[in-house]
């Protein structure tokens, strides 16, 4: 039988894989993609809770729609910034962008 716990644990695993990606990828595009994983983990959580805990109200799904919207906007802007950085520095490795250090 499919239970809420299945979905929650799946989303936890997906979330931390995304965190790992954000922490370790050098390529800025890779970081952005890892962020999408995190968003998806959250979405699974939202929909699962909505379905199991409050089946009459589907606010969780509505929220998911908004999260997808924001994620789309975020990735568009992120990619645009990466492109602009690439134009000026010919590199998009996150650990080389360290002008703001001591």
């Amino acid at each position, binding site marked *: 039988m499919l239970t809420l716990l299945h979905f*929650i*644990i799946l989303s936890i695993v997906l979330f931390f894989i*995304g965190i790992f990606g954000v922490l370790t990828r050098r*390529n800025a595009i890779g970081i952005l993609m890892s962020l*999408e994983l995190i968003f*998806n983990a959250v979405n*699974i959580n939202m929909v699962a809770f909505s379905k*199991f805990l409050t089946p009459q109200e*589907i606010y969780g799904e509505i929220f998911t729609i908004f999260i997808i919207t924001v994620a789309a906007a975020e990735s568009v802007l992120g990619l645009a910034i990466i492109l602009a950085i690439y134009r000026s520095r010919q590199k998009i490795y996150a650990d080389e962008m360290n002008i703001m250090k001591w």
Partner: protein
Amino acid sequence: MTSLVFFYIFAVLIVISAIFMVTSRNIYYSALWLALTLFAVAGIFVLLNAYFLAGIQVLIYIGAVVVLTIFVINLTKEIEGKTEKQFNKQTIPALLALLTGIVLVVLAVLKTDWASRIAGWTNYDETAKIGNLLLNDFVIPFEAASVLLLIALIGAIAIVSLDKENK
């Protein structure tokens, strides 16, 4: 029972493709693994009876975000990963954080008494309900989201467009 089988298929697909996405040296492959992950998440949505969301997931994430990402990868010419290192120096701490994080949160979740909270499972036409809610209760956030998208669009164009000097 069928749903449980499908759940495990999708779950394994999600976890494996996500791991490949994160660890792949070639950023182009990463993007493709991401597409697979997102597709499997859409499958999970179907299992949860959220058909409309599954559709959005495929259309927006795979159709728009991943495609856009691949475009940018092409534009930045960073697809060859053989000479350059693809991971920074904090892989091991990040791995430790990953494992402890998973263990801690799973423990916390297991501790929680879900059974008493779970209501029944009902099947109904959620697409119509979502449409109703979006245009009634959530009409203002809905409009705000459209404005947000417009701002993101204009912002992206403004950031990427060339200066006069660079032309």
